[in-house]
């Protein structure tokens, strides 16, 4: 933001742009493991309500899970998240992204992908 310069006792409009980003702590993991969802914000006030929606990559109609009631403190949040999706619907998806939203209006860009291995590996004889 450039400095605002002008006469006293007059209104001089200025605007700020808040920014938020979300990341997984892993690139790949097993279903059932715990990962950390990290959110980093700029110019977002402390105590701002955060919603973390987890979507299959490319399918943004219904989230697999949504974390609510978290807040940003000191411009960040690190939320430990167990991938306990036994009762969740994710079709045949294996790649998942986070959509973070602040105060129901400021949306972060989609996070990088987390690849989740859903089944145990099959070894050849």
């Amino acid at each position: 933001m450039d400095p605002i310069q002008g006469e006293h006792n007059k209104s001089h409009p200025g605007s700020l742009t808040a920014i938020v980003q979300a990341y997984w702590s892993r690139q790949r993991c097993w279903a059932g493991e715990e990962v950390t969802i990290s959110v980093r914000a700029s110019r977002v006030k402390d105590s701002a309500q955060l919603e973390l929606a987890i979507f299959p990559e490319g399918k943004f109609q219904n989230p697999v899970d949504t974390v609510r009631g978290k807040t940003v403190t000191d411009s960040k949040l690190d939320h430990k998240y167990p991938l306990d999706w036994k009762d969740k619907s994710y079709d045949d998806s294996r790649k998942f992204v986070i959509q973070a939203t602040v105060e129901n209006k400021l949306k972060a860009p989609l996070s990088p992908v987390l690849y989740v291995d859903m089944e145990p590996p099959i070894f050849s004889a």
Partner: protein
Amino acid sequence: MVKDQFGEAVSGLDYVLTFPDGKKTKQAKLAEGKVRENGPPGSYKFALKMLVDAAWKDTPLEVDKKTTLRIWASGYDAGTDITIEIFDACGLSRAPLETLQKKLAADYPLEVEWTPTAAKLEKLASNSLIFTAKVGTSAATSGPALVNRREVFEVKDESGQPVNADLSLWFIDGPALATEFKENKYEALVPWSWRLLAIDVSAQKGRRAGFTDAAGEREVLLSG
């Protein structure tokens, strides 16, 4: 009046107001988007104290190649301490890979040169880096920057002479993104965490070849 991108008045941010005579306010916070100070008539200059943006100047990054971290700020005096932390993009909740202590310059943006070396990236699990800049409670986080490393392959015959072979490099996550042949050597830029899986040498199919990389010497079967 200072508003955010949703049209709401901003509160709680530190600001500095420069009076017509050049005097500056100290320790003042914005309230409901407004500034209220007593002073003489004239032209005033107002700036919020904050880090505005943080970005890598050159992406993708390359191991052992100098890059520049660029940070925009407003309202701070030159010489103000700034902390820059460089993280694995998948390790924001862990300790930074490196911490730099700098001072803000009189002119923005602040540009800090930094070189990603293999030693600094030893704990990098993903292929991307992020940096966060902090002054007091104000922070700005960059976007992720892919880190590539340059791999050089040289094909020689039994007598040690270079062979101009048609070569394709396959890594665990896919083929080399770019392969360049110069002076009898193949140079490939590959993401940091990718590991070599196979070398396709069509003309030499079925032969075994010695191979040396960071893990030591080994033998591979050439396919094609």
